[in-house]
């Protein structure tokens, strides 16, 4: 009997070790890329440079720049809740889940600024691991490994170390895709709801879920079909809960769109036209619009490549929508950051980097850009 107990219990350990060993490179690249971001921010802390829009107060905390920009707003929501201030930039423009998690972190006694930075970095690690699992399901392990490592050093992932919800959205997006592929519709509904409560583009995950539902429809049992449809609707439903909550809390269910207007993010039918028309003037007179404009163009190009790589069409549609919808506000500002959850971009990069030299080159350039993007944090809005 003892022998049997031993033989039954033993495989558990090697399984974990094997699991970790298979993902060792992901842990290493995550740690390396985050070390790079933290080192860059530490350098800024020591030198108080570049100053840009930051006052000295932003450099004083060890990793102060990581808690800056929208991080200030997320912390304010976590502490004080929501309030729409007419004609002013105010916090109902920010979706509620990330500040809600920050509030929970704050309740443990950890300062919210420290907890937020830790949380974002850990969520990013989880996102990388789940993205690897999803990519392995959709492609093969080699491509999954390359795509995950390239995501770890992707230039815009510096925001995944900041008090921003991008890590959470990335994790929820990858989990949603994974659960949909695995037909775990209940879990899929939960994760898409999380994504939709973290950022408005989380609603777009409806597309890949719908894609999975359509391809699997014939093989699904009737009860599975019901849960799958429920998962498709869960994202928009969760997003609707935000204006409903604002209606209860602020007596104004339209507070989100009013706050968006004050932030210059009101959407218009001709917004994309204005963004494209305006960018040519901005590129002549300013330097920074190049970043987001190039981010948009490169993302769209990589999405086209992703189709050749065999990425599901619905994921590509999600990527295109993620990049183009924000242009409806008439500006390219932050479009590079908004494109971060467009997962086919990393599949396309990995597909293009099948050769070692190509992979090494792209990874090196990406790492360099990641460091550059981090040190320019005080100069330009992420």
């Amino acid at each position, binding site marked *: 009997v003892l022998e049997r107990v031993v033989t039954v219990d033993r495989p558990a350990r090697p399984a974990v070790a094997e699991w970790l060993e298979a993902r060792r490179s992901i842990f290493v690249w995550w740690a390396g890329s985050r070390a790079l971001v933290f080192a860059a921010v530490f350098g800024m802390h020591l030198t108080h440079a570049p100053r840009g829009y930051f006052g000295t107060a932003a450099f004083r905390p060890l990793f102060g720049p990581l808690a800056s920009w929208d991080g200030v707003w997320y912390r304010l929501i976590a502490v004080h*809740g929501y309030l729409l201030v*007419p004609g002013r930039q105010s916090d109902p423009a920010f979706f*509620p889940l990330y500040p809600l998690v920050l509030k929970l972190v704050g309740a443990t006694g950890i300062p919210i600024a420290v907890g937020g930075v830790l949380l974002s970095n850990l969520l990013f690690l989880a996102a990388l691991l789940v993205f690897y699992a999803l990519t392995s399901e959709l492609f093969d392990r080699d491509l999954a490994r390359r795509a995950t490592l390239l995501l770890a050093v992707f230039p815009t992932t510096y925001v995944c170390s900041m008090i921003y919800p991008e890590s959470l959205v990335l994790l929820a997006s990858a989990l949603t895709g994974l659960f949909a592929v695995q037909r775990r519709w209940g879990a899929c509904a939960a994760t898409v709801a999380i994504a939709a409560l973290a950022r408005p583009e989380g609603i777009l995950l409806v597309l890949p879920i719908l894609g999975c539902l359509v391809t699997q429809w014939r093989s699904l049992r009737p009860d599975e079909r019901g849960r799958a449809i429920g998962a498709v609707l*869960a994202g928009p*439903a969760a997003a*609707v*809960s*935000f204006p409903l*909550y604002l209606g209860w809390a602020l007596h104004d269910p339209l507070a989100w769109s009013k706050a968006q207007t004050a932030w210059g993010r009101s959407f218009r039918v001709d917004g994309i036209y204005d963004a494209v028309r305006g960018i040519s003037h901005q590129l002549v007179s300013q330097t920074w619009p190049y970043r987001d404009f190039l981010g948009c163009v490169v993302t769209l190009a990589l999405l086209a490549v992703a189709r050749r790589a065999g990425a599901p069409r619905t994921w590509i549609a999600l990527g295109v929508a993620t990049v183009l919808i924000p242009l409806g506000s008439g500006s390219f500002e932050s479009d590079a950051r908004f494109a971060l959850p467009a997962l086919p971009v990393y599949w396309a990069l990995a597909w293009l980097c099948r050769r070692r030299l190509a992979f090494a080159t792209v990874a090196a350039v990406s790492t360099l850009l990641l460091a550059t993007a981090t040190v320019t944090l005080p100069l330009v809005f992420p």
Partner: protein
Amino acid sequence: LLPAAAIPACAVTAGITMQAAAFGRAPEDSLVATAALRELVRYRVMRGVESIDGRSIATTCIQGWFRMPKKQRVTPGAIVLLANGERLFDLGFGVRRLVRVADSRSANLEDRVRFVLAGCPRYLGDHFATDLVRGRPVEAVDERSDGRSAAAITAGSRQTRLTLDVTRTTDKPLAVSFSEGRLRGSSDLVPGGGAPAIRRVRHAFDLSAHLERARA
């Protein structure tokens, strides 16, 4: 198909419940203040009669976009004409007193208080909005002003305190009182102004030549 309806219903319910539990409702005083701000920022002109240390004087404030002398860009700001001919303005560099055309100096404490009491809508709104946005406490108390049911909204610290009285029903501004250090004063406000009042202020600031009103 029950799960198809139940899952989204659960998502909505859970979403609202979580948000309500985590953030609760906005404080009623803050909501009264934001309603007053919404009404206040509708106006571009404010007339008033302010009194400091028992001395009363009529004021007119116009806010809009102005061009500084020798500058091409227009900047948002507010200009105030007092009935005794004194001219105060703030174009983003603090309150200044216009001594003569194209010549100004920094305002002293009394001038700053006078400027606040002139009730320039956006300037007053900034005071309240800054506190509201940063989650600082804003207090709203029911009272009667000129025989009308009003709310007195107070923001600021013990050192600098600003109170705006608005009607309870329409949120229209009625009066403002301000204290900075030992200096304090109050003003009865009348939002909006006719063309003659605006013309008088523009003429006093010689806007067409030196401090041009680009858009008001």
